């Protein structure tokens, strides 16, 4: 018995160490992707140019000042905001995905399971159709409807007097279906040359709208949400057990469930409100991270955040630099993500697929 415990502790320390190594490895990977992303794009400007521009600003630089102004603007106002957004949204989607998978005790759970994404899409479409066409109004409406979805979810769950997770899943399905139908209805009545195009474009998702002005509003809630989820991830281990087990440990299951749900809902709605729906990231990144460090959430969540950020940033860098036309990011994430996950599932051992 004691032997077993000792063995387990040793295992745990080993895992902790290997997790530390993995953090460093994937931290370096993220830095590498950022470096790559800073250097490529449709407009020829590199990090060396950026240094030159800075030197020029302080009065001791070389080269053409006129052309360096244009380069500076591309670098500072287009490329950097987009990189920042990619990192934030990538980690937000994957971290929320991991939380959903733990809370719903279901490896297929992803941010859209409680209807938040559908709510946000509906909110955006509603704004395109009925509200003044100001970007900030559309973002706020999308954020509010995403959040409304989670409020409805809580409210309905409360009314059912059944605290099981099945009820939440059912309510999520109902809300998703309703918002989806509302969205389709709006699309049906919208003018196909104008509103419909805007709506479908928005739903497809893109990081093109990354400007400092937009980021000021969207990044704080995303960043704070991700931080909370990563730093308060220790409770998730218990939350992913059955309710009886968790309760027998003296934990207020309901409080923690709604706490995690609310924080992830804010994070997801905030990121959906700026870049639309980006599919698959929230589903596959937690799985990949779990195959690397196992299901212990304290180790899992930071890695999930790192991996998600690198993944989305890399995909976005490729689609924005490869060809003159940009492939919508959701198509790219699914095309790359789905087969990669398939490959991992085939390669991994059974225990590594355990998600609890």
């Amino acid at each position: 018995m004691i032997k077993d415990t000792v063995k387990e502790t040793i295992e745990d320390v080993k895992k902790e160490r290997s997790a530390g190594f993995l953090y460093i490895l994937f931290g370096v990977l993220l830095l590498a992707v950022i470096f790559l992303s800073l250097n490529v794009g449709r407009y020829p400007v590199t990090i060396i140019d950026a240094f030159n521009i800075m030197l020029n600003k302080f009065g001791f630089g070389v080269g053409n000042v006129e052309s360096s102004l244009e380069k500076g603007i591309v670098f500072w106002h287009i490329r950097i905001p987009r990189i920042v957004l990619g990192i934030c949204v990538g980690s937000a989607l994957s971290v929320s995905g991991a939380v959903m998978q733990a809370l719903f005790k279901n490896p297929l759970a992803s941010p859209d399971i409680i209807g938040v994404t559908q709510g946000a899409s509906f909110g955006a479409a509603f704004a395109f159709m009925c509200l003044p066409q100001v970007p900030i109004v559309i973002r706020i409406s999308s954020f509010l409807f995403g959040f409304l979805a989670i409020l409805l979810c809580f409210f309905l769950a409360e009314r059912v007097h059944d605290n099981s997770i099945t009820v939440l899943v059912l309510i999520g399905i109902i809300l998703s279906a309703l918002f989806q139908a509302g969205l389709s209805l709006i699309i049906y009545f919208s003018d196909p040359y104008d509103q419909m195009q805007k709506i479908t474009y928005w739903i497809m998702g893109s990081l093109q709208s990354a400007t400092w002005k937009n980021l000021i509003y969207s990044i704080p809630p995303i960043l704070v949400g991700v931080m909370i989820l990563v730093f308060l991830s220790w409770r998730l281990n218990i939350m992913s057990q059955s309710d009886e087990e968790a309760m027998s440990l003296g934990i207020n299951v309901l409080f923690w469930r709604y706490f995690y749900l609310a924080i992830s809902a804010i994070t997801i709605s905030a990121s959906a409100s700026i870049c639309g729906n980006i599919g698959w990231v929230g589903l596959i990144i937690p799985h990949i991270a779990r195959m690397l460090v196992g299901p212990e959430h304290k180790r899992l969540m930071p890695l999930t955040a790192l991996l998600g950020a690198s993944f989305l940033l890399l995909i976005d860098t490729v689609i924005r630099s490869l060809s003159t036309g940009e492939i919508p990011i959701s198509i790219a994430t699914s095309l790359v993500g789905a087969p990669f996950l398939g490959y991992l599932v085939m390669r991994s051992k059974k225990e590594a697929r355990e998600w609890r």
Partner: protein
Amino acid sequence: MKKTGKTIALILALMILTLYTSTGCGKTATAPEDEPEKRFIVDQVGRKVELPEKIERVATSHHFDTKLIYALGQGDKMTHKRISAKEGEAMERLDATYAALPDLEAPEYQKASAEALMVVKPQVVFSYAAFDTAEIEQYTNAGLTVVGVKGETLDDTYEAIQLMGDILDCKKQADDFETYVKEKVSTIEGRAKDVKDEGKPKVLFTGPKSIYTVATGDMFQSEMIEMAGGINVSKELKGRWCEVSPEQIVAWNPDYIFLGSSFGTGTVDDLLKDPALSTVNAIKNKNVFIFPSNIGWWDFPLPQSILGIMWIGKTVLPEKYEDIDMTEIADEYYNRAFGYSFTEMGGKL
């Protein structure tokens, strides 16, 4: 429970009433019962269609064909409203005959269902078939006589005009209108021929989705820019409206940016203030415009687009198009095409 029953009964009664009144309407209208003489035509997608000799009742599925019917002076044969955007609202205001027509039981921009069309009892339905012919099949299966038309190029449009002239027995009007359009096209052609390629203004035509959605070389918008004497910066792209990255737009550095097919305002100001695009010539020189017009699109469909070509010319090469008065020519065209001038219909440039 009792209340629900009552509501259901009420809804049912209303439904029956609507059904009754709508069929009643159909019956009072003249629907020639026996037409012994038949004729055949070949439509623009190559189908052989059997038609009654004389056609009094026409239905359409798209604003391209609807507008042509009015341009050929055959508006009195229309069985329903189908002019889109604010042009349609203007027609309702100005034209009592148009205002009296029934609405199709379909949202303005959706395909009309076969049933909705059967209610108005047309002898022939024009269906816009440039992209897919599924609609034709759907209507034919419902027993309607369908003629497929298309107008993605000028030649297609001339063909459509002649086909309609044949079918609606208005050869002369068709010839007149075709001549009129050709004449307008000839006033554009050759104006920019002495402008060297490197001197041609670079134009970015952006789509309805966002400024990062641009008109490709495959699209008529690209042809319009070239005809007017400009260069479409995104002509190397293929397909329809294509996404590009903001960096790409800075790299292209267009002299003019047109926001296409959008009635939204405020976007121009947003663009002018966007620091990311501040080095682009079009932004620096405030050459960002919402593509006209405020009552209906000038980039689509043809032949209305000739106004759009002239407008591009006047905007990007003003000295070459000095003699053209845009309002005057728009008034003239709208008078030909709708029977009311552009200004009367609420158009502003």
